[in-house]
């Protein structure tokens, strides 16, 4: 039996290759997600380990890789001498680390940004726990004076600077920009590279003068242990000589904690990618079910013959499943390989807007292989099970008959299940609306899934009117060719619908996302329009805070009435990172018109405002305490009131600037709102501010409309990434159309021969196949658009109070998606149509 199975597989390479391809793509997505996040994790682990010494002395609670914000606390330099005197310490290296120092390249463009930090510190010879020196001078000299810097090799290369060149820098210090001579190049120790982070090395005195107001302090002290001294012993010994508020931690401990913190973020990225992998796999399942159904249908006579020759029902059943298993194994193997390539593709995608993983190593963990094969094999076997069972039911006597009708479960049963599932989905959604917060959304999500599957099941019936409308159009436009194409699409409603359903799922998500995106953009417009009273806004162009000096300089310009500095911090609230904004309340009240209890301007330092969405989600009411974990410790604020979520102020919580500084966060602005004095010449003032920020690629000056545009651009960027990831599911769906058409044409070989014999031109035959393909694609597109619009409206309503209160449906865009689907239909038909038109007429007529 096994030999028969394998021979069958070989005889049908092409047909199986197509369904195998669906497995390859699905598995590739799963494997690629894991490989990519592993690489990302590996690179970060490399950085963490490569920058951590045997023991690190830090302000208490500091040193976190992903903290609430940049820690403003420091350690007196004298502590370094005390530590160096300890017998357990081989070397103690005090360092000053500063974030927000960026290099402007020779071409005037900023190097890095958009996530990866721009780090500056003084050079030390500290050895990391990896055994490598954290940084090593590889060319030139170390900077010795304030007008000199060294850069890491990658940054210097990207920026296009050589030793001796004048380097432009952006700094978070009192001087927003500075120029220095490149004295040397250093190499970062760890293998994974810097993931896009840039390193600027200053002389010891220079960094303290520039960023620490000349105080002789360190942000941390790295300790290397004397021979035979363990990390724990080293840290314990160091702790004895430390002043209050400063602690010594072992390198392993600190590295592990930071890796955990990074792992959490990477887990989020992995989940995000895996969601798309699941979509791809679900769509792939449709394709596999369809392929095996058609293959079994076409082979029903042959299978009946094996039954007549004595094979048991179970053997036939098993034969089909073994066939599926072989395809699954081959597909999964290729899928893992393709996943590797996909991970490299993701690297390019992520690299295009932020983290650079050029130096990261992409490894294939055994876990990745295990998960990939499990997904590939399970999905294929589950998908092949129904057709296999049907194959087993073929009566042996069918082998003798001319036309074998495969026993098929009636459409009625399928319809019933589909309708019940859809109703259950509607019930879940209604329940979701009644419920609140996360549970409500979860119910709505489950409801959508149920409806999606339900509609896929009933699509052979609900698709009928769509096909009829198309058919009427075809008849008018293409005459009998159009009629034949429509009838072909109708011939196997199940097959057509299953093929279209795969596309439907992808397009439902695309339509849903485009509606949510459009609504988000409209909401942003409305919010900025309604609340922003400032005439100009300075924003950070690279998602990194900038020097507070900029706001101070703007304040001195004639015609500027008020300036509000908005800062951001990310302390933990109830164990998860929160989005906290801080501003001077009186200044902010000038720039924004946000109605809050008692007025925005009256916010005291011990109080907090929260968006209504967050307050609802966290179950907070006015008067409740809100505890935020800052490096200095936990700070408690009293909830004073709520404000509607608002694109003009990117924060979930709002506290005062003073409170944030008390919490130990370094002052750096994320946004600066500028109100002009009455009668001020707007253009003149703007020109003056423009001159001020001209040399700073990290910030941009915008009017409210431009500011809204910038916010919307970020929404677009996210949308494009989602579209790109959904594209793979759509590619699989398109393959499904190719597959179904190709198999259908094989099935209709005699008919094709007949049509050619009685005078159908090749061109007409190709058109017939193309029109059938377009029918399938449009069926999927129309169903997908309808579902996407319904889901989009429902979801927008569900989260309206969480900051998406405007519903906007991009009809033009949705229409464009339908047109694209038709084009996709044309493309999908290309190969099958070519094949059909090239069939030898006589052989085709004589075919079995």
């Amino acid at each position, binding site marked *: 039996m096994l030999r028969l199975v394998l021979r069958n597989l070989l005889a049908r390479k092409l047909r199986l290759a197509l369904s195998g391809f669906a497995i390859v793509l699905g598995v590739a997505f799963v494997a690629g997600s894991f490989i990519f996040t592993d690489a990302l994790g590996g690179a970060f682990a490399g950085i963490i380990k490569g920058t951590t010494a045997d023991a690190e002395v830090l302000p208490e609670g500091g040193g976190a890789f992903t903290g609430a914000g940049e820690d403003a606390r420091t350690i007196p330099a004298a502590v370094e001498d005390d530590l160096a005197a300890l017998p357990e310490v081989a070397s103690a290296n005090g360092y000053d680390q500063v974030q927000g120092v960026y290099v402007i390249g020779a071409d005037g463009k900023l190097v890095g940004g958009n996530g990866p930090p721009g780090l500056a510190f003084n050079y030390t010879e500290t050895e990391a726990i990896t055994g490598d020196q954290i940084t090593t001078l590889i060319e030139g000299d170390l900077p010795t004076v304030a007008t000199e810097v060294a850069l890491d090799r990658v940054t210097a290369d990207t920026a296009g600077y050589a030793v001796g060149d004048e380097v432009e820098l952006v700094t978070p210090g009192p001087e927003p920009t500075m120029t220095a001579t490149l004295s040397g190049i250093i190499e970062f120790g760890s293998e994974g590279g810097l993931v896009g982070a840039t390193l600027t090395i200053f002389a010891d005195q220079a960094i303290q003068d520039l960023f620490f107001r000349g105080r002789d302090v360190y942000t941390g002290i790295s300790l290397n242990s004397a021979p035979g001294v363990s990390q724990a012993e080293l840290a314990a010994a160091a702790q004895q000589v430390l002043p209050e508020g400063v602690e010594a931690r072992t390198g392993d401990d600190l590295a592990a904690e930071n890796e955990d913190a990074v792992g959490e973020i990477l887990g989020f990225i992995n989940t995000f990618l895996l969601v798309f992998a699941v979509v791809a796999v679900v769509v792939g399942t449709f394709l596999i079910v369809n392929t095996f159904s058609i293959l079994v249908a076409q082979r029903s006579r042959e299978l009946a013959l094996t039954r007549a020759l004595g094979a048991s029902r179970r053997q036939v059943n098993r034969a089909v499943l073994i066939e599926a298993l072989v395809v699954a194994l081959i597909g999964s193997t290729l899928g893992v390989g393709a996943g590797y390539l996909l991970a490299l593709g993701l690297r390019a995608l992520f690299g295009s807007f932020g983290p650079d993983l050029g130096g990261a190593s992409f490894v294939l963990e055994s876990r990745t292989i295990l998960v990939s094969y499990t997904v590939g094999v399970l999905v294929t076997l589950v998908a092949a099970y129904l057709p296999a069972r049907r194959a087993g039911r073929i009566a042996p006597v069918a082998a003798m008959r001319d036309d074998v009708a495969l026993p098929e479960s009636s459409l009625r049963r399928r319809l019933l299940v589909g309708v019940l599932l859809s109703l259950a989905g509607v019930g879940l959604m209604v329940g979701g609306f009644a419920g609140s917060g996360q549970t409500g959304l979860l119910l709505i999500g489950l409801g959508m899934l149920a409806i999606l599957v339900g509609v896929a099941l009933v699509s052979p019936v609900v698709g009928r009117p769509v096909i009829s409308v198309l058919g009427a159009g075809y008849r008018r436009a293409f005459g009998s060719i159009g*009629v034949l194409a429509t009838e072909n699409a109708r011939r196997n409603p199940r097959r057509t619908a299953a093929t279209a359903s795969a596309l439907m799922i992808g397009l439902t998500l695309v339509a849903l996302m485009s509606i949510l995106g459009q609504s988000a953009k409209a909401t942003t417009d409305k919010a900025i329009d309604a609340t922003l009273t400032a005439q100009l806004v300075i924003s950070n162009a690279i998602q990194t805070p900038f020097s507070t000096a900029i706001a101070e300089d703007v304040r001195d310009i004639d015609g500027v009435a008020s300036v509000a500095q908005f800062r951001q911090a990310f302390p933990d609230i109830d164990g998860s990172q929160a989005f906290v904004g801080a501003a001077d309340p009186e200044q902010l009240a000038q720039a924004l018109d946000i109605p809050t209890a008692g007025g925005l301007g009256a916010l005291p330092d011990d109080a907090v405002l929260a968006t209504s969405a967050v307050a609802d989600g966290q179950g907070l009411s006015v008067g409740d305490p809100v505890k935020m974990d800052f490096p200095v410790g936990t700070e408690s604020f009293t909830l004073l009131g709520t404000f509607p979520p608002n694109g003009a102020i990117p924060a979930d919580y709002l506290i005062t600037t003073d409170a944030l500084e008390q919490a130990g966060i370094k002052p750096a602005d994320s946004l600066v709102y500028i109100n002009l004095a009455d009668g001020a010449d707007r253009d003149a003032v703007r020109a003056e501010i423009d001159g001020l920020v001209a040399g700073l690629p990290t910030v941009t000056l915008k009017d409210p409309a431009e500011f809204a545009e910038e916010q919307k651009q970020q929404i677009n960027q996210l949308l494009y990434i989602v579209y790109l990831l959904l594209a793979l599911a759509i590619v699989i769906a398109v393959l499904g159309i190719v597959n179904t058409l190709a198999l259908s044409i094989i099935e209709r070989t005699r008919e094709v021969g007949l049509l050619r014999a009685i005078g159908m031109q090749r061109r007409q035959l190709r058109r017939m196949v193309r029109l059938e393909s377009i029918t399938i694609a449009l069926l999927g597109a129309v169903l997908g658009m309808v579902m996407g619009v319904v889901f989009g409206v429902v979801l927008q309503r569900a989260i309206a109070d969480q900051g998406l209160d405007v519903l906007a449906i991009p009809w033009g865009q949705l229409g464009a998606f339908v047109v694209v689907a038709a084009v996709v239909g044309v493309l999908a038909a290309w190969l099958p149509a070519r094949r059909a038109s090239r069939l030898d007429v006589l052989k085709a007529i004589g075919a079995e």
Partner: protein
Amino acid sequence: MTQTATAPGTAASATAPAASARNLTKVYGSGQTEVRALDGISVDFAAREFTAVMGPSGSGKSTLMHCLAALDSVTSGDITIGETPLNGLSDKSLTALRRDRIGFVFQSFNLVPTLSAHENIVLPLAIAGRKPDPEWYDTVVKAVGLADRLGHKPTELSGGQQQRVACARALMSRPAIVFADEPTGNLDSAATGEVLGFLRRTVDEFDQTVVMVTHDPIAAAYTDRVVFLGDGKVVDEMRRPTSDAVLEKMKVLSAREVAGTAAGG
């Protein structure tokens, strides 16, 4: 084309042939495995005549018909359908020729299963983007006796009805010639009679030309003329055949073939 009924076999020889073949050869394979399916065959099919092509299997009768019907290419020789020589025509022109000038009836699977009987009948015209002549359509449909089954799909028709629909389709474009490849091979005797009777009428009443490949002497008896093939050549011919005479001739030809094979082998 007139609709005057013509007595079988009378005026036929006076007009130009509906189809003619000159020195046709068709060779499959090469060298050791070379098979000469047609070996320099020349034959004319007179207009308004019903001709049967007979011969033992392997005699080349199907190949001859496929070549004449522009479904297959020849190795050498000339074919003319009506006044059109097939030599050097492109696939596109040949397809158009099949559509407009040639009618087909195959042994089985003649109809597009998704289309109704009516749609099948007018399909070649529809493909060409033309409307059928309503008078001619009514005449043919009435003649095949399908007026009440036109809306049915092929699966709802009996085997004989399906073949009659195929005959009607073959005639719809008033072709120069209709080729029928064992049109009754899958039918019982009653249905066979209906189909052959109809083909006979198309020649007698509608001035059509029909060439039919068959191995059935009873079917051959419906025709005006039987052309016997053997080893890719015309070996004999019979006018106004009867089934007994045809059967007798077939026996002789088979015997000769067996003898020839024995002698040759």
